[in-house]
C-alpha cells in the first residue's frame, strides 16, 4: 500500500488571540517573536491515518508539501512520526497562489511520483481553512474523493472510509487509487519518539521546482490564482463581558443563574 500525504506548514495555531496580528500590507500573519510554525493539525491526522494503514498492511508513506520557507524540524514531523520520505515543492513562482494553484502543483507532483494507492490530506488547512485542495487534486487526477473521514480500511483494492454526517456514520467505499481528506474523527496523532526525531533530522527531503514538475510558471502562484484575498484583518471582539461576583464562587454561580432568569433566557 503506497500512501501520499499532503502536509502544510502554517503559523503556530496556538498563538493566543490576544497576540494574533496580521500584516495588512501583505495580508499575512505576523507571528509573535519566538513562535514556531507547525504542521497543520488535520494534515497530521492525515499522516496518522496513513501510518495506521501502513501499520496494518505494510507499504510506504510519502509526505508531500508545497512549502517555500520550510522550518526543517517542523516540516520533517511526518518523517519523525514514521513516514518514509518527504518531497518539498519549492519555487518562487508558487508564491501568492490560492487553493486552485496549490492543487495544480500538488497534482503535478503526484503525476511525477507516478504510482500510488491512496492520497491523504487534512480536510482543510489551519491557516486559510478553505477545505478545497483535496477535492481539486482528486478532480484533476480523475480519482474518487471521500471528504472528512475518520476510520479507514483498505479491502481488496478499495478504500473504505467512515464519515460522520450529522447523527449518522456512513461507510463509504471507493476503488483505489483514491483521495481522502482527514477530519477530527481520525482521533489523535501519534507523538514522535525522540529516536525517530533524530533519525528524521538526518533524512534529506527531495526538492522539486516548477520546472521539475513541468509547470508553466504563469499557471501557478498569484498569476494562476482564481481568487484573491483583498483584506485580512482581526475583528475587534466586543469584549464587554460582565463578570458576575459573589462572596464565594458558588454565590457567583447562583448570580449567573439569576442573570439568565432576568434576561428571560431560562
Amino acid at each position, binding site marked *: 500500500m503506497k500512501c501520499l500525504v499532503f502536509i502544510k506548514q502554517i503559523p503556530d495555531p496556538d498563538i493566543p488571540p490576544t497576540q494574533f496580528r496580521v500584516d495588512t500590507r501583505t495580508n499575512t500573519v505576523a507571528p509573535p517573536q519566538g513562535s514556531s510554525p507547525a504542521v497543520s493539525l488535520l494534515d497530521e491526522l492525515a499522516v496518522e491515518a496513513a501510518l495506521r494503514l501502513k501499520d496494518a498492511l505494510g507499504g510506504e508513506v510519502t509526505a508531500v508539501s508545497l512549502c517555500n520557507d520550510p522550518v526543517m524540524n517542523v516540516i520533517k514531523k511526518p518523517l519523525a512520526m514514521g513516514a518514509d520520505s518527504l518531497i518539498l515543492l519549492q519555487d518562487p513562482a508558487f508564491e501568492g497562489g490560492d487553493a486552485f494553484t496549490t492543487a495544480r502543483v500538488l497534482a503535478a507532483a503526484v503525476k511525477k511520483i507516478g504510482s500510488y494507492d491512496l492520497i491523504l490530506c487534512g480536510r482543510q488547512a489551519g491557516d486559510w481553512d478553505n477545505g478545497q485542495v483535496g477535492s481539486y487534486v482528486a478532480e484533476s487526477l480523475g480519482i474518487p474523493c471521500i471528504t472528512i473521514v475518520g476510520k479507514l480500511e483498505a479491502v481488496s483494492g478499495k478504500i473504505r472510509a467512515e464519515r460522520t454526517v450529522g447523527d449518522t456514520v456512513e461507510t463509504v*467505499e471507493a476503488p483505489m487509487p483514491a483521495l481522502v481528506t482527514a477530519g477530527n474523527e481520525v482521533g489523535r496523532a501519534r507523538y514522535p519518539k525522540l529516536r525517530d526525531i533524530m533519525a528524521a533530522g538526518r533524512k534529506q527531503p527531495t526538492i522539486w521546482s516548477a520546472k521539475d514538475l513541468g509547470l508553466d510558471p504563469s499557471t501557478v502562484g498569484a498569476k494562476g490564482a*482564481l481568487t484573491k484575498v483583498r483584506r485580512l484583518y482581526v475583528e475587534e471582539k466586543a469584549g464587554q463581558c460582565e463578570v458576575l461576583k459573589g462572596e464565594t*464562587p458558588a454565590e457567583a454561580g447562583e448570580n449567573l443563574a439569576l442573570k439568565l432568569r432576568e434576561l428571560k433566557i431560562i
Partner: protein
Amino acid sequence: MANGAGVLIVGEVAGRELAGITGELLGVGRKLANARGEELLAVFLGSGIGATAAGAFAQGADKVYVVDNSLLASYQPESYAAAMERVCAELTPGILLMGATYMGRDLAPKLACRLKTGLATDCVALNIDPQTRGMLATRAAYGAKAMAEVDCGTVRPAMASVKTKSQEPLEPDSSRRGAVVPIAVQLNAALAKTQVVNRVTVEVKGIRLEDARIVVGGGRGLGSIANWKSLEALAADLKGAVGSTRGACDEGYCEMATQLGITAKSIAPELYIAVGISGASQHMGGVSFSKHIVCINKDAESPVFKLSQYGVVGKWEDVLPAFHRKVKELLAG
C-alpha cells in the same frame, strides 16, 4: 462562461420542507441579485422534490428549477457534480451559492474545479463590489482568529459556500408563486465512483445539539467522564444538549459527534454555557452565532471572557453545582 447572469442557489430539502440553509441562501442571494439587478434562481437536486422546491418562491426566488432523478435521491458526489455542471451550462449563472453543509462542503470544491472557477468557502457575509460587480466574500481564517475578504474572481459563476446559521432568511411571502421548471440531465449509475455501503444512525439521547435552544459546552478541564455527567445533568434540566471541545473528545469524555468548532459542528442556540473552556478560536468559531454566550472559567484572562456576555471567574467544581442548583430552583419556581 464569462458572461453569466443571475444568482443561483443550490437548495436543500429536509423531508418535505426546505432545509434551514435554503432560506438563508435565498435571503443572501436576494440581496446579491438586487445589487446586481438580476434574477434570483434556485435549483434543487433530488427525487420527487418538486412540490417542496416550490416553497422557494415565497422565500425570495424568482425562478425555481429541479433536477428530479432517482439517482439523486440522496447526495452522491459524482452524480450531483455532473448534474450541477449541466445546470450551470443551461442557466449560465453569474453567481452560484450553496450551503457549507455536509453536501456543500463536498460538492462545492468538486464543482468549482470542474467549472474552473473561484470558490470562497464557509462565508459569513457576501457582497457585490460596486466597481467590478464581482462577489466579495467574508470568511473566517486562521482558526477564526482573523477574517478575510476574498475576491471570488472574474470567471463565472463566481462560487461561495455559506456558513449555516450565518444569514437571515426573508419573511415568507405566500403571494409569490410560480411554476417549478424541470431540467433534464442524463445520468447513469456508472458515474458514481464512491458508494455508501453502510449507514448507522447514532441514537441521540435527548435533544439534538443542532436543534437545542440551550447548549452546555465542556472542555478538557472537566477532567473525567464522571465529571462530564454533571454537564449532562445540567443540560437535561435545561432541556438542552451538551457540546464539547476537541480536547474533551480526545480525552474520551464524550462522543466525537458532540464536538463544536470550525472543523466540527456549528450551532446557533439561544444560549451557550461554556464550562471550563478556554475559548480557543477553533472551538468558538463553531458557537459564535449563539445569541448569548456565558462562561465559567478559573482564569480571568482566558479568551472565552472576550466572547462572553456574562462570566464567572472560578473553578467549575466550585461554581457549577451552585449554578445548577439555582437553575433547578428557578425552573421549578
